[in-house]
């Protein structure tokens, strides 16, 4: 496991989070650069979503600090971190059900990035196109199916013009064909230079994008590096892949 102080990119130093008496993150160190695509795997309850939420500023930490491009953001709220370029999607999509798809995405492009009215429109339309939602732009979000809800999560995040995009099981529940579309979209984001941190259980989908893999278990990072090496790590096999391999 790597230990970091500060550097360019997104990094966490020794972060600790408890929910009641349960330690969900135990002194976790993490770092990624803007041009990286990092995957996170691990069993349920490993702390993956909590790490992502901590990086996005969804709650305050019990210990540790978080830096974005050498600026400490530990005490900054989720909305402030979004303005600085860190945005997340949610494992269970959270559409603004009473608003249309375009209105959902427009909120993001109006508030998540410094924009004029016209540029907010452009960012929103571009994000909708990139996410493949042109055909439902005027549809009420609460009438969308799962795939479109996931796409909406992505579109809203993209409309904020992020530097780091934190994806939480965005391929979960999708068919093979839908996953392929999603991977194509995420590869396009990579080409645009957006850093991707992606939690995913569907490993073969994740590996089409991730060039570095992290495995978590019981609130700790147990392996971090090249995907092939991580997936063959005995600790990872034991904790995540379900083998009793030595």
């Amino acid at each position, binding site marked *: 496991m790597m230990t970091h102080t500060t550097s360019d990119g997104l990094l966490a130093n020794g972060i600790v989070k408890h929910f009641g008496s349960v330690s969900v993150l135990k002194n976790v160190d993490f770092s990624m650069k803007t041009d990286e695509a990092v995957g996170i795997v691990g069993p349920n309850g490993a702390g993956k979503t909590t790490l992502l939420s901590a990086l*996005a500023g*969804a709650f305050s930490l019990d210990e540790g600090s978080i830096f974005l491009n050498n600026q400490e953001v530990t005490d900054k*709220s*989720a*909305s402030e971190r*979004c*303005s600085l370029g860190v*945005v*997340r999607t*949610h494992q269970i999509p*959270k*559409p*603004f*059900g*009473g*608003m*249309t798809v*375009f*209105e*959902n995405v*427009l*909120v*993001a492009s*109006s*508030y*998540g*990035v410094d924009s004029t*009215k016209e540029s*907010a*429109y*452009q960012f929103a*339309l*571009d994000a*909708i*196109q*990139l996410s493949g939602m*042109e*055909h*439902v*732009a*005027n*549809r009420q*979000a609460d009438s969308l199916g799962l795939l479109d809800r996931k796409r909406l999560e992505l579109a*809203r*995040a993209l*409309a*904020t013009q992020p530097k780091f995009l934190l994806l939480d099981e965005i391929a979960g529940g999708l068919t093979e064909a839908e996953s392929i579309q999603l991977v194509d979209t995420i590869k396009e984001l990579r080409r645009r230079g957006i850093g991707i941190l992606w939690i995913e259980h569907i490993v073969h989908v994740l590996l089409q994008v991730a060039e570095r893999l992290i495995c978590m278990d019981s609130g700790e990072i147990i392996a971090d590096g090249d995907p092939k090496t991580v997936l063959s790590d005995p600790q990872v096999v034991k904790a995540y892949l379900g083998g009793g391999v030595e």
Partner: protein
Amino acid sequence: MSQWAKNVSIQRWTPSSRRAVMVAGVVLLVLALAPLFASNGMLDRLTALFIYVILAAMWNALAGYGGLISVGQQAFFGLGAYFTIRLANVGLDPFISVGLSAVIVGVISYPISLIMLRLKGGEFAIGMWVIASILHLMVNLDGLIQGETGISLVSLNHYDSGSRLTIIYLLTLGSMAGLLTLLFFVLRSKTGSAIQAIRDDEEAATSIGVKPEKTKRLLFVIAAFGIGAAGALWLTSATTFLPKTYFSVQWSAYMIFMVLVGGIGKFEGAILGAIIFFLVETWFSSTGVWYLVSLGAIAIAFSLFLPKGIWGELERRFNWRFLPVGYRVEDPKKEKQ
């Protein structure tokens, strides 16, 4: 930018909404001329209708757009009337007192919001009722008010009966038009989109850059200001300030009824609901307790069987959007939705 994004345009107004605004303008003009031809009785009733419209629009903005369901908005209705009495008592013209009183209520609502907006859902709703009760008791402590005995806005006697009625009518009409315009443009602005996003999912809204506290506070203060104005205007019409009446939860019940029946979260729905409530009150209030029972039963029936209210249903069936606060993407190549 992508090709599709270049081809489409964003529409805010539709031909029907432009026509609706023109009709609304004509209606307002006719209403403004009503003192020239309408009886005093009619002016008095229309004044009540305008106040109901203000109350419904404000509660709808708070609950329907902002998701802040409150059963304590009578707090601001009562304070609006109370400060009008207080200001008139120090020698201010009663009609100037009305405007100033609404501003004071808006200012007072700010520190209240600091506490109350920490509460969510049912806690906020009931908490606001508690705030209303506390403010009612505090107002009763003012010697000028003489407890529940109350006091009259005697400075209205400086105006003769005819001109007083006309001023009250026009002031209420102007206030209604001004407050509806204010609400309309706030809800159409990017703040309005943020308000709705927070209503639907505060955590998700925060994650894309919205600052919920600031946004909700603005809405809370605007609603308090509007309802304070309504309370002050009601006092000029009813003349006597009885704390028990003005701080009664019945005002919140009326607001809820109007919005539920007209269409929660629909700008036009609140106005329609106020008109329906006004007609029901005009025709059936003489039936006493059965009138109140019927109001409750109708509200429950709408919640169960027509949760989007009459306007919501009309909008769904006929795609009516006369006063749209949202956005529509117009694709000249393809419009299949």
